[in-house]
């Protein structure tokens, strides 16, 4: 290749290129890029320096304070410092890092650099995964930075290394899921929606912090305290931990796939694999929670609702530009696009009904799951399905040609839930409560939550039926309005090497 300018005019020292050896070739290019950028970003540098300075201050202050204290006082101070360390670390990896992830893909989309990335050998998945990995690497760097302070705390006594390491691992796992949610949602182009979801996420997290899920992270005795240790015994322990880890992995993959699908070029079919994965997860994970002879079966229902909701929300908000004729190449409900997503939703609906029958059969009243419990669970699952199915019909009716259905889907979802909540509040102040909920729950599915105490299988049946009607209507409208793409194959030629 000849040069554009006369090379003799260039300064001699500029004629040879500096070799960049900052990162190994074995690392994914996107990780290299993200680390090069991420470690220089003010948000990370400030967070890092802030943590360092606060922790250093805390350790120095406590060391002075306990210099002449008794052993019990030192242990007590050590516990306070541990809580402080973990609190700060949790704030960093559970809130700040996922919030940073919310900008990961949107900045690439906004600056149009995403097209250039997709024209390299990087697939949409590798791009999204690389960004997520980089966030977690930075979280690990933060952890490494606080470890020396944790060692100092060891000298104060009363430290349970196993318990605290378990807490850190659990926090990392949860942080991985949250960061994946942040990165996945960052593909949603509307900054308003991203902000709303971020706020809702933080509120949900704070609520969860008070629950048992975060006992791992904040209690120093999840492995030793009474009730939890009873739960965590023998094969039950293995099944529940395996189920939880698999659920976390599935959620991480699903959130990342949500982002990858929205940035992938149309030629990249991401739908078939992730929809099959959702079906597998829907059968494996609830089974793991249902098997132990303890009260963990409730987690089966939670897992069913979470897996179904996430898979359905993703499938129903896929770009519809590339609707293929039914029966082409692969099973038609696994093809990309929301019209096929609605058909996939019908399959999930059937899977949910099947699961409920199986679990209701397995879990008799001897395990504390009576008929009333079954009715509540059936209504909860039905409400969940209805909430995530309804936006598909709104898209099919009002914006069938939208090229950004994810925005509309999420906005409809939020709007419907919010309005439902308002009606629920109004309903609770009215005499003869339940009327408004019964009348409007097909329009505002979150109203279903207000009628749980009615405890009726009939209501659950209506919810499943309504969700099925929504999904079937969306599929029919979608396939009618979107002209299928015709892939014209080139005549067989031997292109030059």
């Amino acid at each position, binding site marked *: *290749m*000849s*040069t*554009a*300018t006369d*090379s003799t005019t*260039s*300064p001699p020292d*500029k*004629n*040879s*290129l*500096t*070799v*960049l050896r900052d990162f190994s*070739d074995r690392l994914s*290019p*996107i990780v*290299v*890029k993200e680390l*090069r*950028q991420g470690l*220089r*970003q003010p948000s990370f540098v400030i967070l890092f320096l802030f943590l360092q300075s606060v922790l250093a201050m805390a350790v120095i202050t406590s060391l002075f304070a306990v210099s002449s204290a008794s052993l019990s006082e030192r242990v007590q101070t050590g516990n306070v410092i541990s809580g402080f360390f973990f609190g700060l670390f949790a704030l960093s990896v559970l809130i700040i890092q996922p919030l940073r992830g919310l900008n990961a893909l949107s900045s690439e989309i906004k*600056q*149009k*650099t995403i*097209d*250039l*990335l*997709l*024209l*390299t*050998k*990087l697939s949409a998945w590798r791009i999204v995964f690389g960004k997520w990995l980089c966030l977690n690497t930075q979280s690990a760097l933060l952890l490494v930075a606080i470890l020396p302070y944790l060692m100092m705390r060891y000298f104060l006594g009363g430290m349970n290394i196993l318990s605290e390491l378990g807490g850190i691992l659990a926090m990392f796992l949860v942080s991985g899921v949250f960061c994946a949610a942040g990165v996945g949602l960052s593909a949603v182009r509307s900054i308003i929606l991203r902000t709303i979801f971020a706020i809702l996420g933080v509120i949900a997290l704070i609520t969860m912090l008070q629950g048992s899920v975060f006992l791992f992270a904040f209690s120093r005795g999840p492995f030793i305290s009474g009730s939890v240790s009873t739960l965590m015994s023998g094969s039950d322990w293995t099944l529940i931990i395996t189920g939880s880890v698999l659920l976390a992995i599935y959620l991480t993959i699903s959130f990342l796939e949500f982002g990858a699908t929205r940035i992938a*070029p*149309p*030629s*990249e079919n991401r739908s078939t694999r992730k929809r099959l994965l959702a079906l597998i997860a829907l059968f494996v994970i609830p089974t793991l929670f249902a098997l132990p002879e303890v009260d963990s079966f409730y987690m089966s229902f939670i897992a069913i609702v979470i897996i179904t909701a996430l898979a359905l929300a993703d499938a129903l908000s896929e770009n519809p*530009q*590339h609707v293929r004729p039914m029966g082409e190449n692969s099973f038609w409900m696994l093809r990309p696009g929301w019209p096929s997503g609605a058909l996939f939703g019908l399959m999930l609906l059937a899977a949910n009904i099947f699961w409920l029958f199986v679990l209701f059969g397995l879990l008799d009243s001897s395990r504390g799951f009576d008929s009333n419990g079954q009715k509540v669970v059936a209504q909860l699952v039905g409400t969940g399905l209805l909430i995530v199915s309804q936006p598909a019909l709104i898209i099919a009716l009002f914006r*069938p*040609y939208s*090229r950004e259905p994810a925005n509309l889907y999420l906005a409809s979802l939020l709007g419907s839930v919010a309005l439902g909540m308002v009606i629920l509040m109004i309903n609770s102040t009215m005499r003869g409560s339940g009327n408004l909920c019964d009348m409007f729950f097909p329009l505002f599915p979150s109203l279903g939550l207000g009628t749980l105490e009615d405890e009726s299988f009939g209501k659950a049946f209506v919810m499943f039926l309504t969700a099925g009607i929504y999904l079937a209507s969306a599929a029919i409208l979608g396939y009618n*309005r979107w*002209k299928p*793409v*015709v*892939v*014209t*194959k*080139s005549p067989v*030629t*031997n*292109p*030059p090497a």
Partner: protein
Amino acid sequence: MNTGIRIQNLNRHFGRLKAVDDLSFEIPVGQVCGFIGANGAGKTTTMRILSTLDTPTSGIAEIGGVNVIQEPAKVRHRLGWMPDHFNVYPHMSVLEFMDFNARALGFEGKERQMRLQEVMEFTDLMTIAGQPASKLSKGQTQRLCLGRALIHDPDVLILDEPAAGLDPRARVEFKHLVRLLASEGKTLLISSHILSELGEMCNNLIFIHEGRLVHQGDANTLKRRSKKVIGMQYLVECVPGKQPIDQWCSVQPDVEMVEQLENGGRIRIKGDQAQDAAALLARLVQDGLAPMEFHHEQQNLEDAFIDMMRELDTPIPIPIQSGTPTPPLPTSK
């Protein structure tokens, strides 16, 4: 004849909107082809389909004989794409940016080092290798974008508005780079609103309107379609005391006044024959009007573009970007 780019009955519909409508054309290997059309004509959509960033509703699109829908990964290997809007990453130097792209394109170790050296020398990026990529001038950024597109040595280059916003010097440099690439046998498809430059750079021009092909050929065939009257144009300076130029014009057959100047004027004779020019020149001198300058007026691509838009019976868009000076008429003194 080997084909660099082939499009056959290509359609791209967004709901009811037909962005590309039964478009067909071929560009032979090694040709530089200009892609012309008003805003919204379907240029970028076509280019995005060719770059595997979009898929057609129907039809065939091939790069180097490889179908973009059937084998997008192979196409990406053969294709260099330069988008109309190019942004670089913050907190990254030019070298780091190029290094990242080379990694992403599969180059490793010494091979990457050698390839980067070659491309950065070609695009004259060596002197700015350490500069932050986000602080480059527009011209430097375009060179960086071209360098990025060339890392994997593609056979076909698709450049969407590559000269937009460049200053005259950067534009000249860019044209030079395009000529060098063409001399190396690469096939280039360039869209631009600066039509005079396309005329200079391209062997072939493709004109699309509302997603349909309306003309394909070299610059001269496009100009010949224009109905604008062309002829010889003279700048004439009047000698004081002699008759004013406008009076002289009024009595001359086939001569028209184009512009009255302070000490003379600009006139045009209709006709395209050399003897007409010679006769007029003799008459001018004979009547005491001193001709200062004359040249053969040629149809330019902008005029041809506007005429074609009129032919298509649509409102005429302004094809030249704001702030871009109208290119001067080629003169032959």
